[in-house]
């Protein structure tokens, strides 16, 4: 006889076990429909592998284990799958879960099944897989997949195997009756478990209120070679609790938050042992179990071997339920079981007992009185907690303190509620507190994750912003470098006339080619006396202009290094223009001469053109002279304020407008010309008009060019690059807009008080940018 180590607390509620042990275990009838939940165990639900309409045989797998902690589910009888849908299942929550409904055919035909025979010849892991595939989960109440526990030998040293036959809850006699009638199966199961875990000691813990079962078990143990000790423990609830039984039998406490295997102990229920035997020896999966059907509302309390999925109604009817007296239907024991409202709910692998209680048997709890801290709960608590303190903490929502008082070591056995003289539903308070704490922790975790995500995002955005800024700066630096390089290149080109001359030569060649083409076209047109002579003439003139321009530039480059940038371009341009005008004149004169010789029709027209060109050449020369003078004046007045320069300047805008008006008028005239007959007097008139307009346009354009050139030169004279200035102004304005936008965004999106330093920074930046932009705009307006 082993020594017994008492655990703290415990209670002695009325046992009510005698009622259901009078009759032997009977087979419950096969119901018309079996409702088999795919999750009857702790862990992941099994995955259905059958379809509605499919015919299945008894013992056939209908749902396959998914994941590490899961077991398969089998058809309890032969029949047709009717549906796979959510239905009410035995669970305290009362929620529905996926169930496979089988319409039984009454034949109860077995699928092929075979045991492992001599399992000792096999690999341990293959036996364990076999057990998993035969749907075996703990039958004591929690339903933990048995194979997971049998694997514990892999990474734990298992010294002690405890077979739990305590069955401490009142009313329940399923294990008691199983031992009485099938002790050999249990011993066979223990042998298999022992082979798999190889423990040093095997202890069977059984309460002393099962004298018959103890005798039978002792008898059965004679047949085994294993050294198995039966440890009879005093009847006290909750000695069948895993932790309590471990302490009772070994004196070892399972550390808080750990499992017995951590101290070298594995516990298995007697029912589980028998199920393992049935699976390994006969290949019978877990498709039925012994259920105690008892309570004052049944006439014939007894133990029934029911198929998994059998509705409770079938069992209650078998036990002759008195429905008019039934007030509470409890699945499990009276201490830890849960109520069921619907007797259509099926028996599952963990259903060890159904209590059909009458009103007198389990009266509704009277109203709770005030706690007088009598401490009876503390004396009853098997976990050595301070239940009344936990109650106060739960009631006042001081969950920190409740946690500090080891709330989570509460096994919810209900001993404290049982003894409470004030009828306080203590366990309910602890469940509430535990749920609140779990919810709080879950929310905390969620908030932490959200915060981390936000911070990561913020960091990423900041990084992106910084990168962007860096890139922008890089670009700016690069641009500045390029600018500088260009400048250097230009300077170099200027310093190295050969390069420039080369360039200019190419340009001159191109323009000459263009000129030639234009000339050819013009002459062809003249020969054919085409309508578009004037147009071609204009093109020709432009080409000529370009060619001359290029030639001039080439010549000047060849003759002398480029003059200082200040006044050079426009003077050059003007010179070119004068030269162009002269050349044009010459050409026109030549053409006129040819025309006169050939007594061509267009001679008259050409004459007019020549006259015009003469005038144009004159005006170009004049403009050149003007600018030359101006330039001289400007260079003298380089020190004068830019404001003055701006005031003195001719309105550029007006000039531009003038040019565009001229262009429009010209176009109109040309259109009219196209519409009229070439030789008609109107045409001549129009042609004249066009020429006049062309001239006017040219004049206006020249004027504009002059003025612009002058402006640029003035700006340049003061060391201001107008182009650069414009770009800078645009950039400054863009910066202002950007800053405004980011400030607005910041104010809108984030909490202002959090970002106030950043906001202040941005605002000061904005002010600076605005100032800069205004300054640049002012400067720019002075030159425009």
């Amino acid at each position, binding site marked *: 006889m082993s020594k017994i180590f008492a*655990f*703290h607390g415990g209670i002695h*509620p009325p046992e009510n076990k005698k009622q259901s042990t009078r009759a032997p275990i009977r087979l419950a009838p096969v119901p018309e429909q079996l409702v088999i939940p795919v999750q009857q165990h702790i862990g992941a639900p099994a995955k259905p592998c059958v379809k509605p309409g499919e015919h299945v045989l008894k013992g056939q797998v209908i749902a396959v284990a998914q994941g590490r902690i899961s077991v398969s589910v089998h058809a309890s009888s032969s029949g047709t799958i009717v549906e796979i849908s959510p239905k009410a299942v035995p669970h*305290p929550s*009362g929620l529905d879960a996926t169930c496979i409904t089988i319409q039984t055919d009454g034949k109860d035909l077995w699928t092929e099944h075979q045991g492992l025979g001599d399992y000792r010849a096999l690999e341990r892991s293959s036996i364990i897989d076999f057990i998993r595939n035969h749907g075996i989960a703990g039958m004591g109440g929690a339903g933990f997949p048995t194979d997971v526990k049998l694997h514990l030998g892999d990474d734990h040293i298992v010294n002690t195997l405890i077979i739990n036959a305590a069955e401490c809850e*009142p009313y329940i006699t399923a294990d008691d009756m199983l031992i009485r009638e099938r002790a050999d199966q249990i011993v066979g199961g223990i042998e298999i478990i022992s082979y798999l875990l190889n423990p040093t000691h095997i202890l069977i813990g059984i309460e002393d209120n099962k004298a018959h079962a103890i005798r039978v078990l002792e008898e059965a143990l004679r047949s085994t070679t294993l050294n198995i000790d039966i440890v009879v423990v005093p009847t006290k609830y909750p000695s069948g609790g895993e*932790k309590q039984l471990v*302490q009772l039998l070994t004196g070892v*406490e*399972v*550390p*808080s938050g*750990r499992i017995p295997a951590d101290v070298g102990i594995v516990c298995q229920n007697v029912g589980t042992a028998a199920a393992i035997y049935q699976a390994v020896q006969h290949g019978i999966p877990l498709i039925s179990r012994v259920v105690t059907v008892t309570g004052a509302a049944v006439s014939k309390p007894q133990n029934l071997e029911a198929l998994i999925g059998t509705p409770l109604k079938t069992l209650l009817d078998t036990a002759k339920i008195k429905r008019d007296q*039934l007030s*509470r*239907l*409890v699945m499990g024991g*009276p*201490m*830890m*079981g*849960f*109520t069921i409202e619907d007797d259509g709910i099926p028996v599952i692998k963990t259903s060890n007992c159904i*209590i059909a209680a009458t009103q007198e048997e*389990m009266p*509704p*709890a009277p109203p709770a*009185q*005030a*706690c*007088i*801290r*009598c*401490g*009876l709960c*503390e*004396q009853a608590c*098997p976990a*050595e*907690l*301070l239940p*009344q*303190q936990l109650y106060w903490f739960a009631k006042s929502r001081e969950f*920190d*303190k409740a*946690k*500090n008082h*080891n709330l989570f*070591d509460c096994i*919810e056995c*209900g001993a404290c*509620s*049982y*003894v*409470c*003289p*004030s*009828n306080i539903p203590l*366990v*309910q308070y602890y469940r509430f507190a535990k749920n609140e704490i779990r919810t709080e922790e879950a929310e905390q975790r969620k908030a932490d994750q959200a915060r981390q995500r936000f911070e990561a995002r913020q960091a990423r955005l900041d990084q992106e912003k910084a990168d962007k800024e860096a890139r922008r700066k890089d670009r700016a630096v690069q641009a500045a470098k390029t600018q500088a390089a260009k400048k250097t290149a230009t300077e170099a080109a200027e310093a190295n006339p050969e390069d420039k001359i080369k360039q200019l030569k190419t340009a001159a060649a191109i323009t000459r080619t263009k000129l030639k083409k234009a000339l050819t076209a013009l002459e062809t047109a003249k020969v054919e006396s085409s309508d578009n002579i004037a147009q071609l003439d204009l093109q020709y003139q432009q080409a000529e202009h370009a060619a001359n321009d290029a030639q001039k530039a080439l010549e000047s480059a060849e003759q002398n290094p480029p003059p200082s940038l200040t006044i050079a371009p426009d003077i050059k341009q003007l010179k070119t223009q004068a030269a162009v005008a002269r050349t044009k004149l010459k050409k026109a004169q030549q053409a006129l001469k040819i025309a006169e010789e050939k007594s061509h029709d267009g001679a008259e027209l050409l004459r007019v053109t020549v006259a015009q060109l003469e005038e144009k050449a004159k005006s170009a020369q004049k403009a050149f002279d003007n600018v030359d003078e101006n330039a001289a004046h400007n260079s003298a007045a380089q020190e004068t304020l830019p404001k003055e320069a701006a005031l003195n300047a001719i309105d550029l805008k007006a000039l531009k407008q003038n040019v565009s008006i001229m262009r429009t008028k010209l176009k109109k005239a040309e259109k009219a010309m196209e519409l009229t007959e070439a030789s008609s007097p109107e045409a001549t008139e129009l042609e004249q008009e066009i020429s006049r307009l062309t001239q006017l346009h040219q004049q206006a354009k020249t004027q504009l060019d002059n003025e612009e050139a002058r402006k640029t030169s003035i700006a340049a004279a003061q060391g201001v690059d107008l182009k650069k200035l414009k770009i800078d102004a645009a950039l400054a304005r863009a910066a202002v807009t950007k800053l405004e936008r980011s400030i607005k965004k910041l104010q809108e999106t984030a909490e202002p008080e959090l970002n106030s330093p950043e906001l202040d920074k941005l605002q000061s930046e904005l002010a600076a940018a605005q100032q800069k932009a205004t300054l640049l705009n002012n400067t720019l307006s002075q030159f425009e």
Partner: protein
Amino acid sequence: MALIRITSPHVHKPASTADIMRLVILATLPGVLAMTFFFGWGTLINILWAAFLALAFEAACIKARKRPLYFYLKDNSAVLTAVLIALALPPFAPWWLTMVAVFVAIVIAKQLYGGIGQNPFNPAMIAYALVLISFPVEMTRWTAPFMLHGEGWNVLGFIDTLQLIFGGWSEHADAFTSATPLDEMRHRGGLTTEEAWRASDVLANVGAWHAVSAAYVMGGIFLLYKKIFSWHTPAAMLLSLGAIATFFYLIAPDSYADPFFHLTVGGTMLGAFFIATDPVSSATSNKGKIWFGIGIGSLIYIIRTWGNYPDAVAFSILLMNLAAPFIDQYTQPRTYGHKAPKRGIKEKA
């Protein structure tokens, strides 16, 4: 089928707070009988009068607080408080003294704190301490054990006692009063304990008090047997008082009373088994109860020996009531599966 839907457990021990209170009242019976035997009808009359007052005050408060009247009155807690007050007061205490005490206990010490289960101090002891300080003359007029007069316990009839209590004090009554043994020991002047024992009539008849104490012990053992309270508080209290008394008695037997005297006179036994064990105002865990008891026992000796009052059970218990929540923080039991018990409240558990 309208089935009840409720979470476990589904069975309940047929016991109630009222049962506990009734058992405690029942356990005072030997004490009540002894008191009546040695000190006359006054104790019984006081008990009835106090119980009536207690129920009346309790009912008034419950009504004022708009609580279900019968639900709270039937818990017997007010009656128990009344009985304990009546046992603590002098047997011939005038009616108004009892009334003041019961008023303080029920209205102020209990209901104003939120009723049953909410009072930080033992209501009977609050009441006793208040009337002791407020009415010292009446409180020190203890009844002389009737055996002193050689006329047996029924020297003053029931009607006479009623007249004495409700009709007012008369010169006649002075014949029946005397000091208590503790008073005698405290105010023995320059006498040694030895001389005091010889000189004092009261001390010569200390047997009456011993007998009353023994009756209380009987009641206490009954309650222990019924598991109404655990042994921790009374054992710790009596052992600490006895140990300290022994220590000083061994050092100077002439100056200090013997431990047996300390344990058997005054309110020691009543306090140990009926007052200190009041669960509402005492420490919670078994370990805590031991510290709680040690505190009471030590304070009783200190106040009796060096304080201003001859008896100190009420003050000691009240002081330890004050310390109980603190004790609770440091005396959590070691929970199953934990290496060490937790102490105090840590911010991060």
